[in-house]
């Protein structure tokens, strides 16, 4: 997935001089995950900009650039370091369109590696996508495959509104797959059906998709055919695919790595029971991270939903 992202950024920079990249260490070293590797050499330090260590400054400067008509792609090194930029996102980036009634807009992308699973230090394993989904005026994208990563990123850069683009850290090197050259844009608001099934619906996004697929395989061994939906974008949300599947199977397991309370799975569960209650054969079940700090390496496995936990939830829902 890492290479797909690099390819998409290169393509965007090549196609449009208004696109530029800024962030900590994105230039000389190509970023802590090497996603911008080689881009400063190709496009120069005015278009691939190493900034001081200041996330609010990065977001705020990108905002100004976007208002002036550029298409900045900012990188924050880890989701745990995006919180200093939260005020700029919530108070300004997400609101300038409303505030100015379309007169000014902020077509920018903030790329942020997120999620646990590599046993990193504290603050390096966050999945707090819900706080962005709760913020009116920003779109929230979480790819799970290389082709989606590249394609959704191109769509994000072309989008007329600000996009929070969350990249699953543990998929960077682990998840592989074909990507067209140049990458093909992938539309927002269209969930992907990663696996068809009639017995129950598993819903996931980002880093949890591979684990959810593994869980579906496990369930299949036991004769349970799960449909797996990959949401791809949380805002906008593809209600049609979600509700259609829920209505067909009547049993839904929502998978989310983030903290449980007020996570995105809560929104999905609330929505499904609001709109498909009478189809439900069992409670909509959430498999989530907990309301704890993400544990460090030695205890991380207690937190992150595993294929086993997802499969167990699937079995429980079948028995309910």
């Amino acid at each position, binding site marked *: 997935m890492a290479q797909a992202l690099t390819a998409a950024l290169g393509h965007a920079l090549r196609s449009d001089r208004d696109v530029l990249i800024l962030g900590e260490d994105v230039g000389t070293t190509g970023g802590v995950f090497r996603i911008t590797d080689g881009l400063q050499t190709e496009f120069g330090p005015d278009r691939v900009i190493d900034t001081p260590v200041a996330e609010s400054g990065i977001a*705020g400067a990108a905002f*100004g650039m976007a208002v002036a*008509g550029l298409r900045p792609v900012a990188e924050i090194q880890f989701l745990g370091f995006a919180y200093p930029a939260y005020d*700029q996102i919530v108070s300004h980036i997400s609101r*300038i*369109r409303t505030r100015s*009634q379309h007169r000014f807009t902020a077509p920018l992308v903030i790329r942020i590696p997120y999620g646990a699973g590599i046993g990193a230090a504290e603050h390096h394993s966050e999945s707090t996508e819900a706080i962005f989904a709760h913020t009116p005026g920003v779109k929230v994208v979480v790819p799970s495959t290389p082709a989606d990563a590249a394609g959704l990123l191109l769509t994000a850069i072309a989008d007329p509104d600000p996009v929070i683009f969350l990249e699953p850290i543990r998929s960077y090197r682990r998840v592989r797959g074909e990507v067209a050259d140049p990458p093909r844009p992938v539309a927002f608001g269209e969930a992907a059906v990663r696996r068809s099934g009639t017995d129950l619906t598993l819903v996931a996004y980002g880093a949890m998709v591979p684990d959810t697929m593994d869980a579906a395989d496990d369930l299949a061994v036991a004769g349970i055919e799960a449909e797996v939906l990959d949401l791809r974008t949380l805002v906008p949300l593809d209600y049609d695919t979600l509700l259609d599947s829920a209505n067909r199977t009547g049993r839904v397991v929502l998978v989310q790595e983030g903290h449980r309370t007020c996570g995105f799975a809560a929104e999905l569960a609330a929505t499904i029971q609001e709109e498909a209650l009478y189809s439900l054969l069992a409670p909509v079940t959430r498999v989530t991270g907990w309301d704890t700090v993400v544990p460090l390496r030695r205890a991380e496995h207690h937190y992150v939903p595993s294929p086993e936990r997802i499969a167990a939830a699937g079995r429980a829902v079948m028995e309910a």
Partner: protein
Amino acid sequence: MHQVLQTDGTLRAAAPLDVSTTRQLYAAMVAARTYDHKGTTLQKQGRLATYASFLGQEACQIGATGPLRPDDWLVATYRDAGAMWAQGYPWVNLFLGRTGDERGGAAPPDVNVLPPSITVGAHMIHAVGLAWAEQYRGTDRVALTMFGDGATSEGDFHEAMNFAGVFGVPVIFLCQNNHYAISTPRHRQTAAETLAAKADGYGMPGRQVDGNDLFAVYDAVAAAVADARAGGGPTFIEAVTYRLSPHTTADDPGRYRPAAEEEEWRARDPLDRVRRYLEANGEWSPAWQDELEQAAAADVDAAITAAEQLEPLGAAAVFDAVFAEPTPQLLRQRNRAATDE
């Protein structure tokens, strides 16, 4: 502290402006004050939500925008209506914002003035981004950002100053040190001797000027703008002034500052000073003053009428200005809202 025009209207140094431009800027100061008085009055009548007066800060507002071109950027605050107007932001927009109507934020297409910043401190980095974009594109536009003494305490001030310094961005930081942030006096805001002293920490020139002196403010900003246009990077200017009014119409300055202090500053009124100067040069008359005030009042009144005649936004408008196209989430909610009502 840089001063050109003294309280009595005499010059300490050469005037940076010819007489005709001075008359124009004086007229703008009168207009700004007319609007400002009206704002306070309308709020008392319940016709505006709150109002933040800039009474006493007119030299800053008109002096700072004087050297700008119409295509330069201005990123200012809730207290900078005078400057925004001088840069092309219509009175009607300013009133609309104050009545609580989002359409106040929609500057005309050719006006590069952002809606006033309500948050303290976050907007200076926006000016940095705007100016950076102009630099990247190779235009010679600059960005002027205005903020208060209190705003210098926010972390975002620091990041904005630092980015501007590192990237040599064509931005001018104009701090109106009006001695208070709501009730907090300047000396409790920072232990620095002057606010201008902060510039050094960002490798940027810092100047302190008499903020009640139109010429001093104009002079300093003009130099900074010329520098920025020529690729010389950012400048920080501390304009020392005083808010003669309450913080907003909800505030009672009697709780935190002596009336005598207000009186002292009233004697340094920035309009009086220019008037005396013009008068001494035979360029001011009571009749002209009347003319200016009446023209300004007419403009301002027309703007109020226009603002108040506008129908409030309907429910659908609330959902339709979040994104270019409403998301499915918003469409569902818009429908639900329509059903509820």
